[in-house]
């Protein structure tokens, strides 16, 4: 049963056909995974003729019994979260400052802020972290925090600016007409609405931030992916695959759970239907998962019902 307006609810024949296709497709995928498993598990002969055990061989996974390894992973996770937490706070503060600078009345503030913002948004994060590290000799931790904070702050700032500029004009006029100053209007009337409207994008960006802490490898900060590298150096490269797989699972668990929390919060406190904010998105892609779906019946026609994350995520 589908509530999409794009097609009818499928009849018995279509349902049967698509069920058959699903089973065949699933079997193909399973076959692919099994095939990959056997290839990976098979012992390999390297160039010099030495035979190496397969990737799932006990000799490749025996370090998992070593509590030291799990301790190292734990420290890596803590370091990652420590960096992401501080950088997230910084990013939101920087983002708010940027959004005020970008919408300032005076062009002496607006134009320099715009240039700065373009530069921070256009530079690779890796380069930015490297820059902070080399120029300010801050040490790995603060280089990562500052780099992540400024880079993501610039993106959050842009989202907030888009939120402010998508508010109906009457909001600002209303604020000014009851005697608030320009700055008060921005703080008390416009900003809270923009922040609420852009919350899904801001939260999605914070998930990206958590993911991007892995780039702090460049300044030798011992976060999770650096930990994997160091464990590999310490225990030998035959554990590469095992360590990689564990790292992958840890990252997936962290990010997926954060994404779900973000979506939950976004759904709880995001803009409600019939809010004062306009329904037609000014910035395509940033906002606008509501059309074509049929919200009154509580079904999402496009197969997903989460908040829009299309605009964020870089």
């Amino acid at each position: 049963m589908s509530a999409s307006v794009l097609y009818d609810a499928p009849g018995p024949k279509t349902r049967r056909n698509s069920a058959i296709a699903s089973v065949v497709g699933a079997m193909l995928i399973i076959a692919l995974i099994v095939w990959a498993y056997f290839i990976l598990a098979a012992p390999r002969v390297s160039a010099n003729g030495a035979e190496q055990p397969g990737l799932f061989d006990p000799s490749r996974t025996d370090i998992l019994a070593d509590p030291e390894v799990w301790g190292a992973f734990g420290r890596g996770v803590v370091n990652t979260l420590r960096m992401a937490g501080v950088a997230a706070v910084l990013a939101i503060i920087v983002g708010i400052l940027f959004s005020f600078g970008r919408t300032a009345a005076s062009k002496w503030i607006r134009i320099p802020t715009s240039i700065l913002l373009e530069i921070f948004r256009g530079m690779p994060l890796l380069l930015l972290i490297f820059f902070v590290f080399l120029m300010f000799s801050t040490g790995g931790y603060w280089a990562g925090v500052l780099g992540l904070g400024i880079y993501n702050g610039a993106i959050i700032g842009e989202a907030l600016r888009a939120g402010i500029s998508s508010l109906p004009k009457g909001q600002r006029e209303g604020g000014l007409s009851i005697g608030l100053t320009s700055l008060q209007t921005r703080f008390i009337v416009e900003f809270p609405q923009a922040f609420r409207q852009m919350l899904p994008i801001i939260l999605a960006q914070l998930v990206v931030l958590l993911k991007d802490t892995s780039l702090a490898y460049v300044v030798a900060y011992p976060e999770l992916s650096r930990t994997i590298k160091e464990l590999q150096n310490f225990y030998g490269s035959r554990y590469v695959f095992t360590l990689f797989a564990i790292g992958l699972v840890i990252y997936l668990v962290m990010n997926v759970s954060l994404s779900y929390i973000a979506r939950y919060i976004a759904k709880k406190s995001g803009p409600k239907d019939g809010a004062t904010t306009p329904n037609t998105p000014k910035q395509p892609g940033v906002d606008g998962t509501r059309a074509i779906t049929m919200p009154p019946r509580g079904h999402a026609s496009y197969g997903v019902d989460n908040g829009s994350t299309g605009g964020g995520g870089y």
Partner: protein
Amino acid sequence: MDVISNAIDALVDITPLYMQGFLLTLALLGIAGVGAFILGVLIAAMRISPVPSLRVFATVYTEILRNIPLLLVLFFCAFVLPILGVDLDYFLLAALGLTLYTSPFVAEAVRSGFNGVPVGQAEAARSIGMGFTQTVGLVILPQASRMVVPPLINVFIALTKNTSVAGAFFVNELFKATGAASRDHGDLVLLTLVYAAALYLAITIPLGLIAGAIEKKVMVLR
């Protein structure tokens, strides 16, 4: 005077290295951009399709790839795929990794463009008897394609910046060149970094301006 001539010497010295890196960055951007676009559109099509299993597949694919750091995706491509018999050099493997990593973001951008088309359009198309393919192909897609361009360009800007991660996997692109140059010219670190930043900005800022211009045009049309 001495400082300036020093700086000029260093600039002349690192320019070939940077140009080679810049070209590789552009090549990565081109290959991964085209690949991610095709793959992303396919994923987006799966996500709105009437077949439930395709929708599930596309959702799982998106969720997994979006929640893994690019570093690990590239690691998988560079070290695990060769074991599986994918016999490519590191450059192509990195391009493949970037393609895979970027495709869900393209899919999300396309999907959000689809969702931006007012629901009445689809209802009207359906009510005059059009089927799924006709509704999407003749009514929704032409309108969505305009809305999709700005977020899509944003995805490509992000891809440009992400190519820098490939430097960790034996691809001598611009960031790798920057690292080497900053080691060789320890006294002129700022210069080497600003030079690299300028080259990156030379790609990303024009793309951003194009996105902004198109966005303005689309807003007038709507």
